[in-house]
């Protein structure tokens, strides 16, 4: 097995493990948010949660796959480790961005729900008596 192939395999192993770990974290901890957003409707929350995680996997694995190719020769172990660190670093940054994007979606959903409070947006100018007809 050449050094390049070894680098690719380690890259894939690390990227897949990281993606799975982040997705599971999102899945586990995002559920509470979603249950709250959907007024305790757990079935709907679980469904949306699952769909979000599927999208997360698709985008991340897509990126990992596209970014696999090195484009230059890896002659020794030092070059291999350097190439690996660049590739894994990119995957980490993409994962981080995706993670914050997901958090942004969760918080937006929550805000949308809280907006439907019964508090009027402004105070009245005056009060008057109401004569019921």
């Amino acid at each position, binding site marked *: 097995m050449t050094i390049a192939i070894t680098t690719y395999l380690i890259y894939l192993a690390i990227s897949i493990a990281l993606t799975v770990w982040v997705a599971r974290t999102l899945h586990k901890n995002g559920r509470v948010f979603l249950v709250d957003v959907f007024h305790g409707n757990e079935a709907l929350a679980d469904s949306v949660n699952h769909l979000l995680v599927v999208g997360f996997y698709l985008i991340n694995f897509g990126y990992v796959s596209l970014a696999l190719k090195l484009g230059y020769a890896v002659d020794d172990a030092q070059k291999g480790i350097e190439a690996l660190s660049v590739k894994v670093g990119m995957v980490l940054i993409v994962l981080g961005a995706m993670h914050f994007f997901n958090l942004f979606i969760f918080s937006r959903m929550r805000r*949308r729900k809280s*907006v*439907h409070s*019964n508090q*009027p*947006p*402004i105070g*009245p*100018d*005056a*009060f*008057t*008596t*109401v*004569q*019921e*007809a």
Partner: protein
Amino acid sequence: MQALTVLYDQECGLCRRAHNWLAEQSKLVELNFVPCASEDARKRYPQLNHDLTKKDLTVVSDNGAVYFGPKAWLMVLWALTQYRDWAYRLATPELLPTTKKVVSVISQNRYQLGRVAGLSR
């Protein structure tokens, strides 16, 4: 707050058009429409200054809170399912001055606007 009474100007085409549009919208708070300064309005709110309600849109809640002018517009918006978010947005300290200005201009020129839009008085 369960219901809002909207005292609107029946003489103006734009207001009648707005009334028809509002009637079709899905609401979070019930909206009742009463022509301003009418017999019905005077009976319902004996203490209200009805000459003032002819000048600008007035909304009265079921517990007697009176909203006049731009505030009345915001309350109507707030009553609508699809526009409640907008009512909060337009009422933020950053946007409220602009909201008030725009609403006043529309209100003061409602007859002209109605004519331009081809709505009869």
